[in-house]
C-alpha cells in the first residue's frame, strides 16, 4: 500500500482562475492510497516546498504528486524538496494542470474535471513508481574543438589559456577558415589576416593545444565528460618532423590545380599549403592531383627537398582522443552555385560571389588586389546585389546577417581603388551592430548609389546602345515604383550563407539536432544558444546560424566558458530515468541501435544482446517503443506506469 500525498497548486490565478483547485484536492482525498491532499497558492514558493517536505515527514508519505505546471518548469524543484525530506526524488510525479489545462480552457466546470482526471492519472502512475539513483561520473580534463576558423581558434585559445588541454581538428591543410579568406573586415576596415594570423600562430605554438589539420573527426562515442573520439589524420606524404616549410617543393611542383582557398580563381600546386601564411606551414601532397600518384612519374618535389621530408608510403592514421567536452565550430558554406544562375553566375565571367571578390581585392589574391574584369580592364560600373538566396522563400528563408555590411565594405573599397560607379541593390539595409549604422551613413556620403529593390536577374541582352556589351541588372526600384535596367561591367552577388553541405551527417556524428534551416540546433534559442541536444557538446560560430566576426567570437568564447565550467567541475551527474535492456528478453535484432538519437545503444557481439549506455541515454523512450521484443524498459516510464495512467484517464 502506497501512502500518496497530493498537492494542488493555484499558481496565483494562472490555474485557480479557471480550475476549482479545492475540488481537485477534495476529489484526490477520495482515491485509494491518497492519505493527504491539499491545495496551495504557490507550490513552488519556499512555504509551498516546506509544505511538501513537512507533509512527507508528518504523514510518512512514500509518493508525492504535485498538480501544477509543466514538469519542464518545476520537476527539479519538487524532486529536490522530496530528497530533502528523505524521499527518493523519483517517487515524485507531476500533473500538468496549467499548460495542459487552465491555460487552454475557459469552461470552469470542464477544466476542473480535466484537472481531476490528469491528477488521478498522475496518482495512478505514482503508485507504480520505483526509486531510482542518480549517478555521477568523472570528467576527462580535455576538450575537442572541431574546426579551425575564428570560432574554433577563439574557443581553443580561451580554454588553453585557462590551463585546459585542447585538441583541435581542422579538415583543411591550414587553420584560419573563412576569415583567412577575407580581405578587410567591416566596419573598421582593418586587414582580416593581420588580426587573425597572430591568433593562428598562437594556436600552433600553444603548449596546451594539440593541432590536427588535414584531419577529420570520424567517430564520437561515449557521453558528457567521457567522450572517446576517433580522428582520421589524412596521409600528407610529407614528414612533419623533418619538413622545414621552406616551400621549395611547392615552387618546383609542375602540377597546377584550382585553389580552394582562392575559390578557384587562382591556382595552387599538387603539393601545397592553403595560403602563404598557412598554419601549419608544412605542405601536404594532394594525392588526387599529384602526377606521381597519377602516373608513377615526376617526384620532382622529392628531388628538391633538401631535408628529405617527402614520404610516399604515408598512410591515413586513426588517432584516439579521450575528451570531456566538444566544441563544434565547423563554420558555414555559401549558396549552391547552381542557384545563382538567374543572376548570371556561371554564365558571365564578370559575375562573382562576395567571397570571390574578397580574393580579387586581396593583395595576395589572384589579381594581386587589382579590381579588374576578366579581360583585365577596370570596371566603369559595379553592381552589388544583396540578398541573393537569403530572405528568399525559393532558396533560404533567413537573413544571412553579414551581407549588407560587407556590401558596404565592397562599395567603399571599389571607390577607393577605382573610379567605378557602385550600385547597391538592396531590400532593407540591416546595419545593427556596433559602428554599423555609422559605417552605412559614411557610405551614403561617399557617392555610392543605393537602389531599394532586389535584383531580379542579370542579362547581357542589350535593349539600348549603352547596354551593348555590358551586363544589365534588372530590378524593381521600389522607391520609384518601376522596373529599371542598370548596365554595369561587374556584378558581385551577396550569396546566402548556408550550413556546411555535410551538416546533417556531422549532426548525427555528434548527436546534435538540426534547425529547419539545417544549421545546428541550439539547446535553447535564448538561454543556451551554444548548447546542443547532447550534453557536453557545444556550438561555436556560424555553424549554429549566420554570424559576423564579433558575434562569432563572442559565441565561441561563451561555448568555451560553458565547456570549461563543465570540465573544471570534474564530475557530472547523468540521467537516472534511462532505458535498460533486459538481456534475457533481447533477441539481438539490432533495431534499437538505429532508433537511438544519442548513439547510446551498442551491441554486445559476444552475448548477442543490445546494451544501453546509461551515461549517454536521455530517457527519450524511442528504443522502448521500437523494441519489438518489449525487452527495453524506460525507467520512470514503464509500460505498466504509462498504461495505468491511461486507464486512470478513462476511469
Amino acid at each position, binding site marked *: 500500500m502506497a501512502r500518496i500525498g497530493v498537492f494542488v497548486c493555484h499558481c496565483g490565478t494562472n490555474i485557480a482562475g479557471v480550475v476549482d483547485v479545492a475540488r481537485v484536492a477534495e476529489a484526490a482525498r477520495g482515491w485509494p492510497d491518497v492519505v493527504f491532499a491539499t491545495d496551495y497558492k504557490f507550490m513552488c514558493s519556499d512555504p509551498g516546498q516546506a509544505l511538501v517536505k513537512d507533509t512527507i515527514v508528518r504523514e510518512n508519505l512514500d509518493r508525492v504528486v504535485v498538480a501544477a505546471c509543466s514538469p519542464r518548469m518545476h520537476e527539479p524543484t519538487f524532486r529536490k524538496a522530496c530528497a530533502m525530506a528523505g524521499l527518493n526524488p523519483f517517487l515524485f510525479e507531476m500533473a500538468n494542470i496549467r499548460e495542459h489545462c487552465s491555460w487552454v480552457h475557459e469552461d470552469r466546470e470542464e477544466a476542473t474535471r480535466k484537472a481531476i482526471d490528469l491528477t488521478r492519472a498522475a496518482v495512478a502512475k505514482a503508485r507504480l513508481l520505483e526509486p531510482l539513483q542518480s549517478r555521477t561520473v568523472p570528467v576527462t580534463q580535455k576538450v575537442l574543438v572541431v574546426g579551425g576558423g575564428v570560432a574554433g581558434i577563439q574557443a581553443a585559445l580561451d580554454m588553453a589559456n585557462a590551463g585546459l588541454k585542447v585538441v583541435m581538428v581542422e579538415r583543411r591543410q591550414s587553420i584560419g577558415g573563412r576569415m583567412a579568406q577575407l580581405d578587410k573586415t567591416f566596419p573598421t576596415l582593418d586587414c582580416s589576416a593581420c588580426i587573425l594570423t597572430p591568433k593562428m600562430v598562437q594556436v600552433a605554438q600553444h603548449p596546451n593545444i594539440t593541432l590536427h589539420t588535414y584531419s577529420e573527426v570520424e567517430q564520437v562515442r561515449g557521453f558528457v565528460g567521457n567522450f572517446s573520439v576517433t580522428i582520421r589524420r589524412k596521409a600528407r606524404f610529407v614528414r612533419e618532423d623533418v619538413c622545414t616549410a621552406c616551400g621549395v617543393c611547392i615552387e618546383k611542383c609542375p602540377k597546377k590545380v584550382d585553389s580552394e582557398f582562392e575559390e578557384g580563381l587562382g591556382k595552387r600546386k599538387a603539393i601545397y599549403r592553403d595560403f602563404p601564411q598557412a598554419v601549419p606551414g608544412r605542405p601536404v601532397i594532394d594525392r588526387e592531383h599529384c602526377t606521381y600518384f597519377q602516373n608513377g612519374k615526376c617526384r620532382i618535389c622529392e628531388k628538391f627537398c633538401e631535408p628529405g621530408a617527402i614520404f610516399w608510403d604515408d598512410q591515413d592514421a586513426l588517432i584516439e582522443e579521450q575528451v570531456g567536452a566538444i566544441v563544434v565550430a565547423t563554420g558555414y558554406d555559401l549558396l549552391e552555385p547552381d542557384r545563382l544562375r538567374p543572376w548570371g553566375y556561371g554564365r558571365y565571367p564578370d559575375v562573382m560571389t562576395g567571397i570571390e571578390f574578397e580574393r580579387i581585392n586581396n593583395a595576395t589574391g589572384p589579381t594581386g588586389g587589382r579590381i579588374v574584369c576578366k579581360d583585365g580592364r577596370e570596371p566603369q560600373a559595379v553592381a552589388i546585389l544583396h540578398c541573393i538566396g537569403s530572405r528568399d522563400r525559393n532558396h533560404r528563408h533567413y537573413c544571412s546577417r553579414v551581407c549588407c555590411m560587407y556590401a558596404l565594405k565592397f562599395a567603399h573599397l571599389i571607390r577607393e581603388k577605382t573610379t567605378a560607379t557602385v550600385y547597391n541593390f538592396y531590400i532593407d539595409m540591416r546595419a545593427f551592430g556596433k559602428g554599423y549604422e555609422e559605417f552605412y551613413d559614411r557610405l551614403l556620403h561617399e557617392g555610392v548609389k543605393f537602389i531599394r529593390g532586389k535584383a531580379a536577374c542579370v542579362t547581357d541582352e542589350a535593349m539600348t546602345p549603352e547596354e551593348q556589351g555590358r551586363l544589365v541588372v534588372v530590378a524593381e526600384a521600389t522607391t520609384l515604383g518601376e522596373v529599371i535596367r542598370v548596365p554595369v561591367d561587374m556584378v558581385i552577388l551577396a550569396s546566402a550563407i548556408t550550413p556546411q553541405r555535410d551538416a546533417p551527417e556531422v549532426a548525427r556524428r555528434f548527436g546534435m539536432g538540426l534547425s529547419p534551416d539545417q544549421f545546428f540546433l541550439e539547446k535553447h534559442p535564448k538561454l543556451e544558444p551554444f548548447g546542443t541536444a547532447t550534453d557536453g557538446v557545444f556550438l561555436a560560430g556560424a555553424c549554429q546560424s549566420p554570424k559576423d566576426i564579433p558575434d562569432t567570437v563572442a559565441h565561441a568564447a561563451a561555448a568555451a566558458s560553458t565547456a570549461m565550467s563543465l570540465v573544471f567541475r570534474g564530475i557530472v551527474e547523468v540521467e537516472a530515468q534511462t532505458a535498460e535492456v533486459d538481456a534475457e528478453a533481447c533477441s539481438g*535484432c539490432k533495431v534499437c541501435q538505429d532508433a537511438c538519437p544519442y548513439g547510446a545503444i551498442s551491441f554486445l557481439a559476444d552475448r548477442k544482446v543490445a546494451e544501453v549506455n546509461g551515461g549517454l541515454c536521455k530517457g527519450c523512450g524511442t528504443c522502448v517503443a521500437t523494441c519489438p521484443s518489449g525487452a527495453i524498459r524506460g525507467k520512470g516510464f514503464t509500460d505498466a506506469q504509462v498504461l495505468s495512467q491511461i486507464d486512470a484517464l478513462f476511469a
Partner: protein
Amino acid sequence: MAEGKLQLAMYWAASCGGCDVAVLDVNEKILDIAAAADIRLWPIAMDFKYHDVEGWQDGEIDVCLFNGAVRNSEQAYLARLLRRKSRVMVAFGACASFGGIPGLANLHDRESIFQAVYGYTASTHNPEGTRPQTRLEVPEGTLTLPDFFDDVFALHQVVPVEYFVPGCPPTPKTIMTAIEAIVTGNLPPPGSVVGASTQSVCEECQREKSEKPVVAEYHRPQEVRVDPKRCLLEQGLTCMGSATRGGCGALCPAVNMPCRGCYGPMPRSLDMGADALAAMTTILEAADEETARNKTGRLADPLGTFYRFTLPVSMLRRAPKGPAVHS
C-alpha cells in the same frame, strides 16, 4: 496427471485443418502419443457426435487441444462444452491462440461479409439474393445452421484457457515439447505459452545482421532477388521475425521467406502489429516526414502484414457487435 492413460481430446473450429495435419507431422512419435494417451475425440480422424461429448462427465478429459478460432455459434458451443469436460484447455495453433488468419475478417462485420460472399464476388451467382438462415422449417422438420458472428475470436476470448501452443501450424518440435510437458506434468503457470521460446525468431535465425540495420525501401519477396546470407529485414523484406516469438527454428527465413509472425507476439508485447510496425519504420531511411510518409504508404497490405495472425487480440478493436459470446 491422473493415473492411467492421459485422456486427450482434439478439436477444430475456424481452422484450415493444418493444425490437425501438423499433429500427424510428428511422424512415428504419434505412436508415443498413442501409447501415453487415449485419444477420445479427434474429428479429423474419427467419427463422433455432439451427444458423445455431452455425455462425458465434467472434467473427464485431461487435456483438450483446441485448434481454430471461434467464428460461429457452433464453435462457441463446442468451446464451452469442451471447456467444461476438460481439466486443461489448450489453445492449439495461431487461430485458437490469437484469432489467426480467419481473424483478419474482423476488418468487416457479418453484414459486409455476407454482402460480398452472397452478393458481388466474381464467382457469386445468386440472383435471388439468398442468404444463409440459422433456422428453416421444412415439411421434414426444422433445419438449423450455426449463427455467424460479427467477429472472430481467439479461444481465450470465449472460454478460459490454460495454455497456448502457437504456430501456423505449430512445428512438430513445438508439438512434442508441448505434449511432453503435458504428459509429464512439467508445466509452467497457467496462461503460459508452451512449446515455444521466450525470445524472438531473430535469436534462432542464422542470417547475418549488420551493425546498424537501415532499410531504403520495403519490398514484397517476389520483387527482389534475396541474398541468402543477409538478414531479410535489412534487405527490405517485411520480416516479422524480430516481433515474433521464436521456437519454430526460423524455418521461413532459412528458405528466403520473411517470417510471417505465426508464433505470435513476444512475451511482453502489448500489440504485435504495433511492435513490428515500430521496428520496421524505425529502420526505414527517410530524411523528412514526407519521404517517410511516401515510403510507408507504399508498404503492401500493412494490416495483413503486421496483424496477419493477431488482429482479434490486438489493440485495434472496433466496438463489439453481435451476440456476446462470453458465458
